[in-house]
């Protein structure tokens, strides 16, 4: 794979410019942060109708080979062997210290053929990691010249069904290979906004045609990365580099739910991934810190990096993602806090520009997730 250090664009770059997008550099790409509608309205539009996102900067990788499933299991604390055909699962690449290298989606395309979607900022490292660590049991193929569109929101299924009716029977976390208007599409019912919706992988050269087709439905608006972030924050979903990083285990990032039972202590295929000792000990004995939702008092946003103190002024944590939730009309935040202070139900404060803002620990998500489970 050639790694070009200059700023890259997706195949929809001109379309974003034509739509009046504000472009910003993100993970080596020039990406739309917002369109003339603005972050707040784009966010609300996605919650009420359907938002179209260009997420072609994300990495798309295929693992092909007889033992692809078993091979991938050596790198993730997740059950891949029992992942049914054309189903997706959320997974994590761990490192030898039990930290998280990246989070990803895995689809079983055919038992000897897995499809991965990884974060844009990590894709080169992930590809290298796969090539170096997965062994000879499968071939690692980095897909070039592919685009990824996400159609998210309560109207997404109606919009897509008008073009291709058989998508309406798909349930959350399932996949289908379809031809839409002569375009080969790989569609999953998934996304990262907390809403029902789809992600569509397709050849880069066809992305503009499909995007135009979707946008021709009046329920659909372009939505940029700004709203994508506020949507995932309200939905309580972790973002790599914020809630997840190389220095914290999945347990310290409150992703216990993503760690499959069969890969835990006492499970049929326990351990066998990088950092397994540390991750299993965190699972069994608890971890020193956890990621929790915070509801700040008042209207002032508490943002990433804000320190968390208890009422005695002890530093007990740090905000990992924070901002304003447009659907809730109030500030919301996610923070990593020492478990001890959570168990004691200490009164907590976030420090913003020298002020102490009272914050309440709340359950995630902030906004109910609306996945279609059939």
């Amino acid at each position: 794979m050639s790694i070009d250090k200059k700023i890259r664009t997706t195949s929809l770059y001109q379309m974003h410019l034509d739509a009046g997008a504000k472009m910003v550099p993100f993970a080596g790409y020039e990406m739309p942060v917002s369109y003339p509608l603005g972050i707040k309205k784009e966010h609300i539009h996605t919650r009420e109708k359907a938002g179209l996102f260009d997420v072609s900067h994300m990495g798309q990788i295929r693992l092909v080979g007889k033992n692809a499933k078993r091979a991938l299991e050596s790198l993730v604390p997740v059950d891949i062997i029992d992942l049914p055909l054309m189903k997706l699962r959320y997974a994590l690449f761990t490192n030898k210290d039990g930290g998280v290298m990246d989070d990803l989606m895995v689809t079983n395309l055919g038992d000897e053929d897995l499809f991965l979607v990884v974060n844009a900022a990590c894709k080169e490292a992930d590809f290298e990691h796969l090539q170096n660590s997965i062994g000879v049991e499968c071939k690692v193929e980095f897909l070039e010249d592919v685009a990824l569109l996400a159609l998210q929101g309560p109207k997404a299924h109606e919009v897509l069904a008008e073009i291709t009716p058989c998508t309406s029977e798909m349930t959350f976390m399932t996949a289908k290979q379809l031809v839409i208007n002569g375009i080969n599409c790989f569609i999953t019912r998934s996304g990262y906004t907390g809403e029902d919706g789809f992600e569509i992988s397709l050849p880069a050269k066809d992305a503009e045609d499909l995007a135009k087709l979707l946008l021709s439905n009046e329920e659909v608006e372009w939505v940029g990365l700004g709203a994508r972030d506020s949507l995932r924050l309200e939905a309580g979903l972790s973002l790599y580099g914020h809630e997840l990083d190389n220095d914290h285990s999945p347990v310290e990032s409150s992703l216990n739910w993503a760690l499959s039972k069969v890969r835990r202590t006492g499970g049929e295929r326990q351990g066998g991934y990088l950092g397994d000792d540390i991750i299993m000990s965190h699972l069994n004995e608890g971890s020193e810190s956890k990621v929790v939702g915070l509801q700040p008092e008042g209207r002032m946003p508490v943002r990433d990096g804000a320190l968390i103190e208890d009422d005695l002024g002890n530093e007990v944590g740090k905000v990992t993602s924070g901002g304003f939730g447009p659907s809730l009309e109030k500030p919301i935040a996610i923070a990593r806090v020492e478990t001890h202070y959570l168990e004691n139900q200490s009164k907590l404060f976030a420090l913003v520009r020298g002020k102490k803002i009272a914050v309440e620990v709340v359950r995630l998500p902030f906004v109910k997730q609306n996945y279609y489970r059939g």
Partner: protein
Amino acid sequence: MSIKFSEDHEWVELKGDDLVVIGITDFAQEQLGDLVYVELPEVGDECSRGENISVIESVKAASDLVAPVSGTIIEVNSRLEDEPELATEDSMGEGWFIKVKLSNTSELDDLMDESAYNSFIEE
């Protein structure tokens, strides 16, 4: 010309000899995007030119309001605390930020008039 503009995208309207109303320009509010929170200074605070006197938060980020002139803050638009969108919807009117009694009226001469500001933002 009673309205002048700063390089930090504020408008300064002269109301009488040494009293000004200050707000953000349309260009500024468009750049910032939807505002969700405004932290205003206290009435009675002294401000000096170039000092950060208020924080303007959009969905995405926090930005500073930089004092375009020096003086004493004699009134703040406390409606912005509950309705920050006023600064987006009516930036030159209902969305004003503060009123300042100038300590040095000659500072006004360093601000731009409308046509100079328009060429400034086109650059």
